[in-house]
C-alpha cells in the first residue's frame, strides 16, 4: 500500500450529511471487477441526472474542482453498507483524503486499508472549510504527521485513530504483520479446542 504522509491538492466540497456508501457507489454497479475501475460510478446518482447528464450545480462537477484529491463533507460520511467498493470509487476517482466531522466505522477501516485518509474535524471546522471552498478557495494541504489542515491562512486540527495513522504513514498491510504471528494463532486454536470445542468445530462435523 502507498504510504500517506502529506498532500497538497485541489479540494471539492460535498456539503451534505450522511453521504452513505449506497450513494458513494449505487448497488447496481457492484458486479464489476476492480480492474475495470470504479471511479466513473462514484456518487453516480448525485452527479448525473436520469439521462446520464452531469448535474451542473453540484460543486463536484464544476470545472475548477476537476482533479480534486480531497473531499470535504458533513457528518456521518460513509455510513451504512460495508461495501469497500465505496472506497474503491473514491480512490479510483482520484481522492486520497476525505475531511468530515464523523465517519462510518467500517468505511474508515476500509479507507485505511486502501490508503485513503479519513480526517475527522469538528463540525464548526467542517462548516468553515466548506464555506472557504464555496467562497472560491481551491487548494488544501493535509499533513498526517502534524495532523493539520491548511487552507488559505487558516490551520485546522484533525483526528485519526493512532493505529490508522501509523498504518497510513508506513503504508502497512495487515497481512504482513499477521504472518509473524502464525505460531500464536496455532497455539490459540489448540487451547480453544479444550476451552470451547463447540467453537472450533460445528455440530455436524
Amino acid at each position, binding site marked *: 500500500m502507498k504510504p500517506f504522509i502529506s498532500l497538497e491538492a485541489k479540494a471539492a466540497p460535498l456539503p451534505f450529511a450522511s453521504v452513505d456508501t449506497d450513494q458513494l457507489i449505487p448497488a447496481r454497479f457492484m458486479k464489476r471487477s476492480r480492474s475495470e475501475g470504479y471511479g466513473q460510478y462514484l456518487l453516480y446518482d448525485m452527479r448525473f441526472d436520469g439521462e446520464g447528464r452531469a448535474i451542473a450545480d453540484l460543486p463536484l462537477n464544476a470545472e475548477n474542482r476537476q482533479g480534486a484529491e480531497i473531499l470535504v463533507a458533513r457528518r456521518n460520511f460513509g455510513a451504512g453498507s460495508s461495501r469497500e467498493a465505496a*472506497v474503491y470509487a473514491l480512490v479510483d476517482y482520484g481522492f486520497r483524503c476525505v475531511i468530515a466531522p464523523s465517519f462510518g466505522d467500517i468505511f474508515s477501516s476500509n479507507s485505511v*486499508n486502501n490508503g485513503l485518509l479519513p480526517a475527522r474535524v469538528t463540525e464548526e471546522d467542517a462548516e468553515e472549510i466548506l464555506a472557504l471552498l464555496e467562497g472560491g478557495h481551491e487548494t488544501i494541504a493535509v499533513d498526517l504527521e502534524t495532523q493539520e489542515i491548511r487552507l488559505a491562512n487558516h490551520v485546522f486540527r484533525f483526528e485519526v485513530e493512532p493505529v490508522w495513522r*501509523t498504518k497510513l504513514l508506513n503504508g502497512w498491510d495487515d497481512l504482513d504483520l499477521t504472518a509473524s*504471528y502464525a505460531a500464536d494463532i496455532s497455539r490459540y486454536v489448540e487451547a480453544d479446542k479444550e476451552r470451547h470445542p463447540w467453537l472450533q468445530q460445528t*455440530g455436524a462435523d
Partner: protein
Amino acid sequence: MAKAEPRTLFDKIWQNHVVASQADGQQLLFIDRHLVHEGSFHGFNKLKEKQARVSRPDLTFGIVDHYAPTRTRDINQTDPAIAGMITQLEENCRANDVRIYGLNDPRQGIVHVVGPEQGITLPGATIVCGDSHTSTHGAFGAIAFGIGASEVAHVLMTQTLWQKKPKTMRVRFDGTLGLGISAKDMALSMIATIGADGAQGHAIEYAGEAVRALSMEGRLTLCNLSIESGARCGLVAPDMTTVDFLRGRPLAPQGNLFDRATETWLSLGSDDDAEFAREITIDCRDIAPIVTWGISPEDALPISGTVPRPESTADESRSAHIREAIDYMGLKAGQALSDIAVDRVFIGSCTNSRIEDLRAAAAVLNGRKAAVPGLVSPGSSVVKQRAEEEGLDRIFIDAGLEWVDSGCSMCVGMNGDLVPPGERCASTTNRNFKGRQGPKARTHLMSPAMVAAAAVTGRLTDVRDLMGGRA
C-alpha cells in the same frame, strides 16, 4: 487474591479471542465464524492474487442471498449478470472446500437469518461477514460485526482480524412494550434519540426488562439495527430464551456438548459493577409505532408526528439535511405523517423477515385487501416453508400481495426487485437512504405490522387503529 476487575459481556468475549496484542492497542482476534455471500468476491480475488487458500473452510460458510432471484430458482431463467454473481460465489466456495448454501438449497436465505437458524451463530463467538448488518448475530451474545473486502481477504487467509477494541455502551429498555409495538420501534426510537452516528466507535449491550422479554426474533431485529446508530455491533446477554432457540439446530453442539456449552453461555453476562463508557435508558412506555420520513434512519418519528420544518433548528447542517430529505422524499414540511400515501409495500430483509415478523404482518392483513401492490419475501427457505405450513402465504396472497422466494430482494434491489423511480414504499427494511431500493425510490421504514397497516389503507397508518380484536 485481588478481586478481578468487573467486566462487561463484550469485554469477556473480546478477551477470550485475543491471539496477540500490539503496543499501539491493536489486537489480533480469532474469528469463530465467517459468513460469505456473492459480494465477497473482492475478498476471494485478493486471495487468488496471493495464491492463497481459505485457512479454515470448516469455519467459513457461503450463502447466496444478495443477488438471489425471488421469482424463479432456475439460474438459467435469471439475468446473466446476476446469475454470474451467484455462480461465482458457488465456484469460489467449492474451490476452497467451503460449504455453500446455494440458490436451490432448502436452507438458503439471507445470511443473517440462516446463521441463527442453522446454529452457525453461537453465544460467546466472534462472527464476521462482509456485510454491515452482521451486528444481527449479537442477539445471541456474540461479538458480530461487518467488515470490508480487505478484511474479508484477511479472515479468509488467517481466520483472524486486527482490531482496536471499541468502547462499550449500554442501552437499557425499561418497562414493557405496548400493544402493536415491536423491537423495530425500540430500535428506531433509539436511533432517533442518539442519531445515525450516535454510537460510532461503540459496541452496544442491550439490557433491561423489555429486552429480556423479547423473543430471539425480536432481539435479532434490535441488534440488526445497531449499525444504523453507527455502532460497531450490538449484543444481548444469553439466557434461556437463547438456549432454547439453539437446542437441536443442525450446526449447534449436540448432546453432552450442548449441555457443557449451555453452562458456559449462561455464565456470560456483564458483571454487576462493570463500567460502560456510556449508558442510556429508554422507557418503553414512551415508544409509539415509529416511521421514518427522511433519508437517514435517524429521521424517525412516532406515526402521530409531522414532517419537520427546516427552520425548526438553528443547526445549519441539520436544517440543510431536513431540506434535502423533504425534497428527495417529495414531502411538505409540517405535513402529518399519517397523510403520506404510499405506492407499494415490502416485507422482508434481515431486519424483519423471520417467522414472527410474517405472523405480525399477517395478523393485520388477515381477511383484508391491500390498497397497494407489494412484495413479501421470507428471510429464508426454512421460514418460507414454515409460513406456508401456517397458512400465512394465503393471507398475503388473498390480500393481493406477492409471495416470493427468500433473499435480500427489495432491501437493496441487487436481484432486480426494485421500487420504481419516484415511487414511495412502506418497508420493513433497515435503510431509507437515497436510492437504496432503486434510483429515486422513496423508502419509509417501519415494523412489519405497520407495513401491513400501510398496505391496507394505502398510507402511513397507526397499526393500533386496525388492531381491534387482533394482536
